[in-house]
């Protein structure tokens, strides 16, 4: 049976392609970008998010845990021993304050489709549909292909949101069932790409060139992290590269925001990029102008939009 671990299903996802959409966030990513604001989607294994700010130290979670990972100390304060946690998810139901969240429940394509298609009437009316995002959905090409095929029977729009860091075979598995690819270009410089994302951009850019020749419409997504990928040189080279590709509908900028920082703590991790800041509107405008100078269409974007876009796990 084909399954994939699901981080979240988000209805009314209005910035992941045309119209009103539902987006499926799969868990697991071959990259680990230091600015990632959804760190819970990096590891493919299930994880428990402990939202400490919501915990009221009621202790209701303690008896639900088979491994005594939850408890109260002498002062009555909740203690979570993550080393004992096997992420079974049993405590999620016990917590009445939404402080414990299990992430990574496996689903079959038809289970996912059922949830996503709950809003099929909205998709039909608005020209929207379903987006598969991640993590990196192409870690699960069979799952994606089957899901897209099921959704396709309802004649709604289908989009795939990918980092591009995948085997071409995975792309070719899903392309015939995909109406739009949202494709990340994070850094045009390979050395920097390796440093900040943990992987080379070579397969990504190769895949992008190859994808552009297939005829499927591509929307480029660029995270904007001041000091990392915003120099004029980087933007010019990116613009030049993209401007030569056919079938690119445009570029959407995703300005960095610090909201993901809490999530690292919820996962018991240190933020990989604690010092980063959001780009100013002036910085964004300059990037837009540069890209437009290469004849590219840049979708209107602003900081808040990016915040909304990148919040799958709730």
């Amino acid at each position, binding site marked *: 049976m084909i399954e994939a671990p699901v981080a979240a299903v988000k*209805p009314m996802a209005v910035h992941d392609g045309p119209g*009103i959409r539902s987006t499926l966030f799969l868990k697991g990513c071959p990259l680990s970008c230091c600015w990632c604001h959804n760190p819970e989607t990096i590891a493919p294994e299930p994880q428990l998010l402990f939202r400490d700010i919501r915990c009221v130290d009621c202790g209701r979670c303690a008896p639900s845990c088979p491994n005594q990972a939850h408890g109260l100390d002498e002062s009555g304060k909740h203690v979570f021993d993550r080393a004992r946690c096997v992420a079974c998810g049993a405590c999620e139901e016990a917590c009445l304050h939404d402080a414990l969240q299990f992430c990574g429940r496996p689903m079959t394509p038809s289970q996912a489709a059922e949830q996503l298609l709950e809003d099929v*009437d909205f998709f039909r009316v*608005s020209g*929207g549909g379903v987006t598969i995002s991640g993590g990196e959905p192409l870690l699960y090409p069979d799952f994606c292909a089957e899901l897209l095929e099921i959704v396709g029977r309802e004649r709604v729009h289908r989009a795939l949101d990918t980092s591009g860091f995948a085997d071409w075979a995975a792309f070719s598995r899903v392309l015939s069932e995909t109406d739009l690819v949202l494709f990340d270009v994070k850094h045009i410089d390979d050395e920097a790409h390796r440093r900040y994302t943990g992987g080379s951009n070579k397969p990504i850019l190769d895949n992008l060139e190859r994808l552009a020749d297939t005829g499927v419409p591509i929307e480029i997504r660029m995270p904007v992290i001041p000091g990392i990928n915003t120099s004029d040189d980087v933007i010019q080279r990116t613009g030049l590269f993209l401007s030569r590709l056919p079938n690119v509908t445009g570029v959407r900028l995703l300005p960095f925001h610090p909201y993901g920082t809490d999530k690292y703590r919820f996962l018991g991790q240190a933020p990989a990029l604690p010092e980063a800041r959001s780009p100013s509107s002036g910085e964004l405008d300059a990037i837009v102008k540069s890209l437009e100078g290469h004849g590219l269409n840049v979708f209107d974007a602003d900081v808040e939009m990016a915040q909304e876009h990148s919040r799958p796990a709730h």
Partner: protein
Amino acid sequence: MQASLWNTFDSVRQELDGQYAPMRVAEDTGLPVAELEIQARRYVEEHRGEPRIRTKAAVVSFILENARIGVDTFDWFADHIATGDIVRKLQAEWYAEASHGIPARQALGHACAVPNLDLSHTSPDWRSVLRYGPAGIRDRALDAVTTAKDEEAREFYAAVARVYGSFCTYIQRLAAEAERTKAIRVIDALNALAVGPAQTFHEALQISYLYNQVQEIDGVFVRSQGIFDSLYLDYYRRDLAEGRLTRAQAKELVKFYFEKYAAQHFPVGNNVCFGGWKQGGRDACCELTELAFEAFAERKSIDPKLSLRLNPNTPEHYLLAACECVKRGQTGIVFANDEVAYEMFRRRGKAEEDLIDFVPIGCYEPAIMGRELSCSMSALCNMPRIFEYVFAELDAPESVEAVKGCYKRLLRGVLEEAMAQTRLREELWRVVNPSPVISGTMDSCFEKGRDVSHAGTKYSTSGIMCAGLGTVADSFAAIDYLVFQKKLCTWGELRGVLEQNWEGFEELRLIARKRAPKWGNNDDGADAFAVELAQYTAELINNTPNERGGHFQMGCWSIDYSVKFGVETKATPDGRKSGEPLAKNLDASIAMDRRGVTAMINSAGRLDHTDFPDGAVLDVMLHPSAVRGAEGARLIAGLIKTYFKKGGLFIHFNVFDVDALKRARVEPENYASLQVRVCGWNARFIDLSPEMQDCFIAEAEGKQPV
């Protein structure tokens, strides 16, 4: 008109806004208010034995001919008259006199339903106002007097002739005052309207406003200004074609006209309708719709509020223009579904040819303009409060079915008694407030020779506002979950917990709130209760005759009674504490629509909205980021169209984020323009009561991404 008269709206707007506070009238134009009242009361005393409609007409007539008046030189519309609210005072006295001996305002000893005499939810026949003008209606009535079929008809026609004759005199007086003060913007229009119907766009708007005012002087609120684009298009086109007016000038007139309503500071706003099917099945949206929405967008005001009737023939760009306003926070627009409204009217036996005149009355209560007196708040029902009596009555129910059976029985008793008591009050209308002004606009009143207070209207319906459906559904779902499915407590224990307002039972309360199914999440566990209870209530209400020759009608909305009723409602099984708000309109309980707007729409779409002839509305709150950018308006349109496809009747929006609301509380001076859609009207957030502000903040917080 001279070019120099134009382009002044922005510069005089502040004066326009303050024109009634206080109203400027000239001392030498009539009697001071105190003297006016003395003389009016003397007349009433001296004519105690005569038919009330004659007395009423005489008083209104006396006011129109003798009150002090005034005209502003900078305004395009004249209307100042100092009446001292005499009719309203008399109305209250006549009501007290007539209702003496009628039992107090509660049913079955339960305070769950409040009977009422609703004189304030009406729409005149605006077409008659324009077609005949006051002089024409007066002449029509004078003709009818001579052929009246009976004494009552004769009295009726005489009363209409009298008030409309004085209406003409009032306009003549305004015209004279305009000449005297050189208020050149209004002189010509007033002189024309004193003797005949409106011929130009300017005159049409002027008579519309004056009519509105005179009907309200007659003691009956106007709660729909009619279908604006259909009513005024011909005047607009003719003026443009004949070079009397430019588009920009017409837009300025619309702004002045809108501002007139805003200046009254009527807290729940004035309702102006647009669009809708017209004869032949095409949509009525036109260049005037576009112009008026531009005026709405540019004024950025909470009043008037707009209604846009949509159908499959509505051109997309009109809908998008309205959605663009919503997106930018000008949310004073309710979207209405023609298809479902028509189907509902047909079920209620309304004639096919009348349906094109569908207007929302007040906020979103469907009615036929000029042919229906819908009195949409003839009784009010607090549905969740019935549970207090269910717990008092039931000892150990075996199933949720048994609880439901008891709830229905009590609800039936409460509503039947409330309707019986409302009927007693409706009978009083004839003596409390016979209404020759609105009656004079209605063909059916002319045909029957009867005032609206005596079944003169073609359709006389009485709406019952049923508040808190979401709380009812959630309470049943919680009872089912806690007592019968999970057996976390017994019925008796739950009763004890509710009596103690959940104190000491926080865990159980959280389970009720967080684990039991909730209305508004597309979850059958709660939605099925809502569907069943709504249908049961509708059948009961809609089949009960009222006292004015029609039927009662169910409304599935609450307006701000979600808060008012909440205050007097004890703890409910859904985890709600005593005094907290009920679920508003068709909405989920505050912050309980956890699966977002699409799930809420899916839930609301399960109800049969044709069961709600007194209206039903869904409030949607969106975070600004969801509708930002070029696609934002299209997304709002997508939500509306999907809701309507699912059978929704009315929908409206709020667009804001919780941070803005919180900041507005601390620094109101910086948020003077922050609008909220309260219920069926808009208000500035900073003007809301702290309790109401809390509701919006709690609701917005529930929608924050976490």
